[in-house]
């Protein structure tokens, strides 16, 4: 079965920006064909998911006001199913990072991202979130949130107009629509995979790319002599620590 191109009402497929990278994702995700059953179920689930994207209210500055304007009477993004905003990361599907992230705020952003449940997405709204924007030369501004969390959609502007924010949200919809949900973003991890302690999304990502951003900081290349000398400690580290303490006492 072939993966259908994502369809959004009122905008024909050809008129979207950046179709090439979307098609690349389709090819990579569904290498070697798609199962008819799971493929059809995927389409159903993704239809539902893409039309009820709940965002975390994470407005740090100007762009947040435009995000509010999106939700209000004139622009009304309830039409697309985005109107529910959550104040708890546990209940949100995506972070709308609307505004500058400073060095003091960076740990909070990382933590909020980590607290969200999979599958999760990040949209970087505005120049500051993308690259530091007008505050690039400041000593206290993170030059783009991609240094901290992986970003799915960038919405340029300072601040972007509500139309642009909605366009960005719809681009994310398209991305969600082609995702492999069963067996991809949502599968039961095998014992080996569970040992790694990372999310499904990350597993899929890792098997396809070798992107350094997605790798957690785990030292894998350990010198051989180090391993052999300290093998006792590394295997029974808890035990040996206790023993040491007892000796001290």
């Amino acid at each position, binding site marked *: 079965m072939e993966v259908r191109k994502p369809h959004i009402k009122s905008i024909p497929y050809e008129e979207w920006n950046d179709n090439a990278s979307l098609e690349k994702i389709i090819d990579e995700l569904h290498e070697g064909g798609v199962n008819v059953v799971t493929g059809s179920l995927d389409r159903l689930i993704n239809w539902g998911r893409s039309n009820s994207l709940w965002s975390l209210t994470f407005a740090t500055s100007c762009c947040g006001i435009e995000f509010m*304007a999106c939700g*209000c009477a004139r622009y009304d993004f309830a039409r697309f199913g985005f109107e529910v905003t959550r*104040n708890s990361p546990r209940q949100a599907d995506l972070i709308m990072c609307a505004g500058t992230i400073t*060095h003091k705020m960076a740990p*909070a952003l990382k933590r909020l991202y980590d607290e969200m449940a999979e599958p999760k997405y990040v949209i970087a709204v505005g120049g500051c979130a993308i690259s530091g924007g007008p*505050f690039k030369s*400041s*000593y*206290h501004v993170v030059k783009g949130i991609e240094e901290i969390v992986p970003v799915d959609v960038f919405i340029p502007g300072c601040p972007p107009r509500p139309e642009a924010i909605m366009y960005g949200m719809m681009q994310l919809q398209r991305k969600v629509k082609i995702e492999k949900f069963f067996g991809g973003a949502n599968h039961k991890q095998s014992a080996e995979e569970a040992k790694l302690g990372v999310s499904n999304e990350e597993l899929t990502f890792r098997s396809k790319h070798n992107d350094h951003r997605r790798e957690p900081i785990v030292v894998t290349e350990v010198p051989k002599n180090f391993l052999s000398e300290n093998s006792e400690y590394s295997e029974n580290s808890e035990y040996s620590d206790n023993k040491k303490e007892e000796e001290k006492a």
Partner: protein
Amino acid sequence: MKLEFLSFDFDKFAQEMQNLKDKKGFDYLVTIVGEDFGKEEGLGCVYILENTNTHERCSVKMMAKCQVCGDGIAANGTGETDGQMIAYLPTVSNIWRVADLLEREVYDFYGIVFLGHPDMRRLFLRTDFKGYPFRKDWVYNDRYTLEDDVEPDYGLEYFIDKDGNLQSKQNKLFEADDYVINIGPQHPATHGVLRLQTVLDGETVKRVYPHLGYIHRAIEKMWESMTYPQTLALTDRLNYLGAMQHRHALVGVIEEALEVELTDRIKYIRTIMDELQRLDSHLLYTSCVAQDLGALTGMLYGMRDREHVLNCMEETTGGRLIQNYYRIGGLQDDIDPDFVKNCKDLVRYLRPMIQEYMDIFGDNIITHNRLENCGPMSLEDCINYAVTGPAGRASGWKNDVRKNHPYDMYDKVEWEQCTLNGCDSMDRYLVHINEMYQSLNIIEQLIDNIPEGDFYVKQKPIIKVPEGQWYYSVEGVAGEFGVYLDSRGDKSPYRMKMRPMGLSLVGAFDPMLRGQKIADLIATCAAIDVVIPDIDR
């Protein structure tokens, strides 16, 4: 206002400042500007004061003394000071309470400690930040960590001991059985990334410690390496609902220093634009108060009409939030041909709508019960804590800069300064509502009479401001917004500092909320109108 500094003897400084307040009536401390005056002069502070009866202003310049410090001082992660020179000044936070946060800001950026200030902690930056970034000899570095910040649970108080040595002692912030919750930095009701560390006794608030700096973008430091026209771009991004006024204060101070004569057309348009911006901000304010109290419908009405105001500005400036309209010597471009007509339509449309917000939210019995007697603050306290803007006017303080220090057309049109005497959140809301009517009045009087003339007075390609110090303030959307400029005759400012509207409001949360319920904190926070990027700059 060109500043003529008074200067005092270091030992008599505290006494002289007390005299200024008690005998000469300078009861409103506008701002404290920390400054690195260069290698020869060293560090110091500039205090700008106002007499609230006569609206006379004066400024005091005070140089800090330095001392090499021994062990045991500041051994708390707020900076390594052992064996270093520490600059110090006597505190004025016991004279004007607003100085509490202002002095902490100076300490944060310049490392000047204030003797007798009970809580010398960093205000904007992380406690593990190395050095004091606004000093001229600070070496730029923008490394950051994703580790959580380890904050001390005590503030330091510095004093001079009998032998003349600088010493410090710790003041505990919390008692052993205090229940502390953090509201923010990611909280929907704080309107951004404000963090209020709240000490509770059951449901009652015992103490509020504001933590700022989550959106500190170091605009003032960036300005020091920019040319004057470049500096303009950043002001719109402070309080993005007061973009015009912020830009107004900045071009105002530069124009005053350059002695630029503006045409009447520029003055008219600037006044109208300022008032449109005020409408924009107040509409969002009324919406947000409704939303924070759980009345989502009330929010939608305000936001609907805000779009009409934005349309009006957008046709001329091209921006919705970031306007980029004023520049040194005038305006970026002339007004749109339809601007006059659109403004008139807007005024006609908006006047009955304001009553609608009152009908749907402001006159609601629930609103009255939630906001009355919520976050009270008396007139004396308002002046002492420098709670300017609508929040101060709700306590009867006639503090409108447009009346007290008129600029542009404000002394030529008829309008009233809105004051009320309820001293609580309800009256803060009502002052905002009344001010919208006044803004409409001002626009109505000016819009038909915009005189012909140039919209821009041509300036030199490279703008160099003569030597001197100036302070210029405008009435921002939530209080007095001022800019202090110290020029050394270069094409970029030596030191420029803003007086943010929100910093003193945040400082006033603690006295307002002591003894109140935790739910009132949200209501007070909503009704006082803080916008965080303006506080943190």
